[in-house]
């Protein structure tokens, strides 16, 4: 088996690594679709004011005469309980979702990565404390903690997401720790140490590059999870302030009108599904691209 793999590696030696990755990625229809979805979501979010039919409907506007209109040519996703265009609001809602993703992952991923790297490389008490803390954090249902923390402070999506951020790093720390620990025992780490490299160099220049694939796959899949999580929090009443368009709150608000005004739930719900599906497909695609297991 090993022989065959070697034979293959030998045969493909003149192919560059990036070519191989690109090949694996581009031959994976799911990954390509995922990329397109995520890209389109980002573009929609950025260009929301220019491409939505009624951008003013995300602000202080009500139109009770046009409430609960079913989808038609003017209102692609219908209108909501106060007569606002759901399509426009859903597109703007992508902004909140993506900002949440950036906010939560932008903070928790670096923290988790650094702690995971340190725990894996330094070992000893650093390892014991960080893994211990990780174990404690893992025992807490994130949703329960988010609810508890944000309700004790002030029940806003912001607070709930801060609570999530405080818990989320553990998953990354755990993952990076495992990679870091195995990389740390490799000969090239010792070689670098003998050559005189300090811990900073070893952590960030030697070990970190070996974690990039793991981090990017996990982060992508997490992006989907953050969006779902935000939607669940909104559903439980920890949403953003009205009239800010937030997909989770839109679903939550619309659910009382099921099934008569189904579009008020299903359309924003479909947008959530669209984005999370995109991130999931992209994550799977990246995983295949990096040829990771599991």
């Amino acid at each position: 088996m090993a022989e065959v793999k070697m034979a293959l590696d030998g045969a493909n030696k003149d192919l560059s690594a990036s070519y191989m990755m690109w090949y694996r990625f581009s031959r994976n229809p799911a990954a390509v679709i995922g990329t397109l979805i995520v890209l389109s979501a980002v573009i929609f979010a950025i260009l929301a004011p220019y491409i939505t039919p009624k951008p003013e409907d995300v602000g202080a506007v009500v139109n009770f005469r046009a409430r609960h209109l079913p989808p038609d040519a003017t209102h692609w996703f219908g209108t909501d309980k106060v007569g606002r265009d759901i399509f426009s609001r859903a597109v703007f809602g992508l902004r909140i979702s993506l900002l949440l993703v950036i906010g939560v992952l932008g903070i928790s991923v670096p923290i988790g990565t650094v702690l995971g790297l340190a725990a894996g490389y330094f070992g000893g008490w650093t390892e014991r404390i960080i893994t211990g803390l990780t174990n404690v954090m893992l025992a807490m249902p994130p949703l329960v903690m988010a609810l508890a923390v944000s309700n004790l402070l002030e029940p806003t999506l912001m607070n709930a997401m801060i609570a999530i951020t405080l818990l989320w790093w553990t998953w990354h720390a755990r993952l990076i720790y495992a990679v870091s620990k195995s990389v740390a025992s490799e000969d090239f780490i010792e070689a670098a140490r003998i050559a005189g490299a300090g811990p900073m160099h070893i952590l960030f220049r030697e070990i970190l590059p070996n974690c990039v694939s793991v981090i990017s796959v996990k982060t992508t899949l997490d992006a989907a999870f953050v969006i779902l999580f935000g939607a669940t929090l909104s559903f439980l009443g920890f949403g953003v302030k009205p009239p800010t368009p937030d997909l989770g709150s839109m679903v939550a608000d619309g659910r009382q009108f099921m099934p008569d005004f189904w579009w008020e739930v299903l359309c924003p719900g479909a947008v959530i599904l669209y984005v999370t599906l995109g991130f999931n497909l992209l994550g799977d695609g990246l995983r295949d691209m990096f040829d990771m297991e599991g």
Partner: protein
Amino acid sequence: MQQNPFLAILTRLGTFVLVMVVLSIMIFVLARVVPGDPARMALGPTATPEQVSALRTEMGLDDSLPVQYVSYMGRALQGDLGMSLLSQRPVTADLGQTVPATVELVLVAVIIMFAVAIPLGVMTAHFRDRWVDHVGRLFSLVGVTIPSFLFAISLQLLAARYFGDWPIIGRMDHGLGFAGGPTGLMLVDSLLAGRIDVFVSALQHLALPAVALSMAGIGQITRITRSAMLENRRKDHVLTLQSFGVPERVIIFRYLLKLSSIAPLTIMGLEFASLIGNAFVIEMVFSWGGFASYGLNAILQKDLNAVTAVVLVSGLFFIVANLIVDVLIAIIDPRMRRKEAR
């Protein structure tokens, strides 16, 4: 190098105790440093300021935090988790009533999860890149991407519309006049009492929430099982068996399945906290009188003793689940057994 396995278990339990202690300190401090007056909450909207301050003193809220913590934990170890401000009775009594309901729901959900996900994972791996694989993967993808509340509500509405008689809320048909039994698990108690009708009713009531709760997990476990199967399939030992003519089905359903069940089990343990979190939503939608909906109310009402207990019990759930997972993995994997004992 073999060590006393008893000692290994003790060490393991020690870690868990530590987890619980840290968890309890965190939630205890959190619950008390934040603004807000639990006494006010307890007394309701019409209470006078005098009534509030009297209750504050009674609850010991005027003591310093460490004093409060020590006295709380001291009582907690004797099984006294304090009074619930909301229900005006001991938290332990509330938990005794609500925890079995959640345990029953979660257990059945976990069973559904594995019963569906493992075969699905095996099938998708076996028929890799064929239509079975695509359908299965799509299904599992939808499982992890659809918000569980949306799924639960849809399930409920559809059941109400197309299966008019199918129960959509609660744990049991009260018309049957069954008061419960020693375990608190309806399925078990009804059988103990020899009440098949109650058992059937309980099973019907369980079906929708358990399916809704298992949905996300099914997606997750299917994916993990599939990739574990595919990964293990590339291993030399598969080649060994193949080259000695052991049939493919035996290799898959016997050799690969057992080996590939380690990864989903591990994930199950780690994701157990998320499962409890999802139970909060599911119990709310299905009016399931479990500990999660109790917890949700406690959180919303700032019922401090109840919130603390709920978080601790969630932690305990996680720990017990992981202990079970550890034992299962040790049963499956001899390497793990020896590592444990080391």
